[in-house]
């Protein structure tokens, strides 16, 4: 039996959108749907979409793991809205157009910024929507970072 070598993807599907006059991109597979924004207040820190933002990217928030004792079952997926000003569209981009966050900016930019896609000569920040929506929940990315810093400090002492 011949095993086919694993082939790295050469293209990625992105959703491109605008929030407060700035263009952002995210992996299309992260978005469950694009919907009219509901009246309910957004549960996530937005990317700066205006108050009157009419649309939202609906994203699934990963369930929290079951409690260590195993008594409590993991929570089901929760759908969360990320308000945006305007959907530009879905695009397929070559992986050659993707860029990493420069080393100097690591730890300085919002942790949801994972890199960039070059659209012509413009750099469009790529946002990890799951990381974005996890930031505000208890035990989310920010708290996890703070906890990690605390445990590092404890390990050094």
């Amino acid at each position, binding site marked *: 039996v011949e095993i086919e070598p694993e082939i790295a993807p050469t293209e990625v599907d992105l959703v491109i959108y605008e929030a407060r006059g700035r263009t952002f991109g995210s992996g299309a597979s992260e978005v469950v749907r694009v919907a009219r924004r509901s009246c309910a207040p957004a549960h996530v820190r937005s*990317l*700066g979409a205006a108050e009157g933002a009419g649309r939202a990217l609906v994203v699934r928030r990963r369930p929290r793991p079951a409690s260590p004792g195993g008594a409590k079952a993991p929570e089901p997926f929760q759908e969360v809205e990320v308000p945006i000003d305007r959907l530009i569209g879905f695009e397929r981009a070559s992986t050659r157009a993707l860029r990493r966050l420069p*080393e*100097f*900016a690591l730890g*300085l930019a919002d942790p949801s910024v994972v890199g960039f896609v070059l659209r012509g000569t*413009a750099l*469009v920040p790529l946002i990890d929507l799951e990381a974005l929506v996890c930031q505000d929940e208890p035990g989310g990315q920010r708290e996890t970072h703070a906890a990690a810093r605390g445990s590092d400090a404890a390990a050094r002492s």
Partner: protein
Amino acid sequence: VASTDLEPAEIELFRVTIAGQAFAIESDLVHEVVRTPPITPLPGAPPFLVGVAAHRGLVVPVVDLARLLGRGQTELGGRSRMAIGRADGMVVALLADEVVGLSRFPARALRSAPLGAEGAEFILGVIFEGGSLNILDLRRALAAARERAIARK
């Protein structure tokens, strides 16, 4: 043969103007000067990191030297230039009011930074020749600003 550990007769510095004041950077830290391309702001970044720009196919962080030194902010115009530098192995684009260029000075004109002067911790020395020219400790200023910003997160 006696050791020939001689001081150089001249030092080469890269001159910029920050908030109306003359500063210089060690010339070996600056690689080139380019017209300022469109800058993409970075969500969550501290004020001194004004964004990123595409340069020769790479993404370079753009640092405003005025904000880095707490001296207001650089106003960008159509003729603005930025210097592409490298500090501690990291490529950084530097924004200033004016990018003057390279100049040579006699080494004897170099004096140590006055103690207690504002921002003296980031000044390597001062050249007195037709006015004072502060030599910026770019590596230290960038590292300190970065550490402070990360600690605040």
